């Protein structure tokens, strides 16, 4: 990257079920927090926020042109507002490009989803091709079950290794005030929990969550002026894979490897295991944390299970993964990838309280979308 782009503010709502909150209330709550925190305002003269990049999905909002929800509460009125209809990590990726282009100096990114108002599996079913898969009743959970089964069969990943991801992330979530989950689970609890879609058990899937999160990014000059602790976006990449899961090798997260290669190249990272201090990734299901660690190059192919067994990804390990509790702690879809950036920024600013990774200087942020991780976005953040 020829110019530096800095994160100057991050904020979010809590992620519990929020029946009392309208979609716009959720966005507004996060926006208000980040404005209070940074003291920035929506301005026309370059002294504050120039434009808004929003992130939401029409299907989840039940509202076509869902960025209408970002107009009132997120500074979109008569101003530049553009909606990224993909995971929140892509919204950050796009906002950084808008600053690198020189068109804007400071952008507010706002992602929201209120999962509790809809049955997400019905939505995901319309994300399956309409001729065959949709009729079968496939959704992203049943597709994930196929991926998990193949991963276990081919790589020898055990149910216990997947359960360990849940135990670790649940424990980590206790230190995260935004996380709605409140119960620590044992391996036995997970392994005896009801099955959602074989082999995935209920606590191995991301719980339903509502909420919004907001990030402000700016040029180097402005970031240095507005905050003592800027977090820099050092590299980023994203990639699409094929739609139909049968056309992909589900145990080879090819698009993730490509996205990571692009981000590492830009950031000058050659050995992520050594050079990265913590990882915030999007595990919609427990097994995905192991598979995404492989895709991110944190361990050799097929060794995601051994990685969690070794404790390396736990607190105090050499490569802590999801010290926030990750998505299994309860983060809304779409918000997920941007919330990973919020968490990574808090870590790099040494503001992560109980879940702080000591001396964190470089963090990986990962967002994904589609069945079995069809598309991935990776960002490298640094202090």
């Amino acid at each position: 990257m020829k110019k530096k782009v800095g994160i100057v503010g991050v904020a979010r709502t809590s992620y519990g079920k929020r029946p009392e909150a309208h979609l716009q209330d959720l966005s507004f709550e996060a926006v208000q927090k980040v404005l209070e925190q940074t003291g920035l305002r929506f301005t026309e003269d370059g002294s504050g926020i120039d434009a808004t990049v929003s992130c939401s999905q029409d299907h989840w909002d039940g509202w076509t042109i869902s960025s209408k929800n970002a107009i009132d509460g997120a500074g979109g009125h008569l101003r530049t507002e553009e909606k990224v209809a993909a995971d929140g990590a892509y919204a950050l990726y796009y906002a950084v490009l808008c600053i690198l282009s020189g068109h804007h100096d400071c952008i507010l990114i706002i992602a929201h989803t209120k999962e509790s108002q809809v049955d997400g599996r019905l939505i995901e079913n319309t994300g399956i091709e309409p001729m065959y898969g949709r009729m079968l009743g496939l959704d992203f959970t049943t597709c994930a079950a196929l991926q998990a089964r193949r991963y276990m069969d081919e790589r020898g990943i055990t149910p216990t290794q997947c359960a360990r991801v849940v135990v670790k992330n649940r424990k980590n979530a206790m230190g995260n005030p935004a996380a709605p989950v409140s119960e620590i689970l044992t391996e036995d609890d997970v392994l005896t929990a009801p099955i959602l879609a074989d082999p995935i058990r209920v606590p191995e899937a991301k719980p339903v969550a509502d909420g919004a999160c907001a990030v402000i990014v700016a040029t180097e000059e402005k970031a240095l002026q507005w905050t003592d602790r800027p977090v820099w976006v050092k590299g980023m990449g994203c990639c699409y894979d094929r739609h139909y899961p049968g056309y992909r090798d589900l145990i080879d997260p090819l698009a993730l490897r490509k996205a990571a290669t692009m981000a590492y190249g830009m950031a000058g990272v050659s050995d992520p295991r050594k050079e990265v201090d913590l990882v915030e990734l999007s595990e919609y299901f427990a097994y995905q944390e192991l598979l995404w660690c492989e895709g991110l190059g944190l361990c050799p192919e097929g060794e995601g299970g051994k990685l969690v067994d070794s404790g390396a990804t736990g607190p105090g390990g050499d490569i802590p993964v999801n010290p926030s509790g990750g998505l299994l702690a309860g983060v809304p879809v779409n918000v997920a990838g941007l919330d990973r950036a919020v968490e990574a920024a808090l870590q790099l600013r040494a503001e992560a309280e109980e879940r702080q990774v000591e001396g964190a200087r470089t963090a990986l942020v990962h967002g994904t979308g589609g069945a079995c991780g069809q598309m991935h976005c990776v960002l490298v953040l640094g202090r």
Partner: protein
Amino acid sequence: MGDRVAIMGVGQTDHRYMRPDVNHEEMIHEAVRLALEDAGLTIRDIDTVIFDNMDLFEGHYLADAMTVDGAGMYLKPGLKMNTGGTSGGTAVATGWQHVASGLFETALVVGWQKQDASPSIGSLVTAREPLYDRELAAGAVGIFATMGLQYMQETGCREEHAALARVIMADNARKNPHAHLKLEITVEDVLASRVLVWPVRLLHMSPTSCGACALVLGSEARARKGPKTPVWIRDLETAHREVSVFRGGCVEPRPQVSAIEVAAGRLYRRNGITDPAGQIDVWELYTPSSWALFHWMELFGICEKGQAWRLVEKEAIRLDGPIPIEPSGGVVSTNPIGASGVIRVAEAALQIRKEAGERQVAKDVKTAVATAWGAGSWIVMFYLTREA
């Protein structure tokens, strides 16, 4: 500003009411292929793909994910933008940001809609706020009815003028091989067509079309090496606004307007445009109803307030007139919604390249403005030039 960005290639399907012969991916693929051929590139030369479509309109969650192969996105970076009717404009803007950032040398922008598979009006109902607005207004026709009614009340404009505007756009559309409706109609035909919401008649409204449009954007270095004259996207501007019928959004004086005035004001100031009608050679405005045209002309500063209908009456907006508008036949002739914003930019680029065939305007086109409009009153606009 960042690196200079040019349009290297454009491609669009022939837009039709029904495309039962192709599925979504095949239809998109037609436009992508044409754009790549036009740019003298293959998909391997494309660094990133920007996709626009509205999930609820199509009835597909993550419509980008579903059409990866058709759009050439396999193993490429890219993302999907969705801002409703402005989506096509937003996608072009997003492509511009990618190339201007210096991280990508080429970007493929893809917009499409297949309304034979999923009628958009069903989801347009949900474009309104659910508690109050959804009961009051559905779809887009009502917006143009209030616009038309208001315009007639405030000016000397009569129904005949809107009908004439529609006839002029139909005359242009017949010269555009890609246009969906190529109607041979007279003012009398328009006035005799069925009332939808008075004064909007059936012929005043855009059709439901299937189609796709793709652009290849490139950095200056790449564009200069391409086979076609580069068309420069000199500047762009977006303004959205809060829209609520209940809270007065559509019943306040000149409701849909301010975003356009604000966006045009900002873009003109940055580019030293003080006399839009004189400095811009051709306009591809996103006009979903002939009744909107009068408002658009005034809000983009093409003429004084209350005077647009007189310019139409003088037929100044024809291909050989002093202020050619919608030489392609416009959105009232062709409306594959997700593609419509991309088509405006593509058509303006063809005018600058002087490759618009029979629909080429008589003037020597050096500059053009292309816009996308949607969501009740949102606007994305582009200032295109022949000179870098």
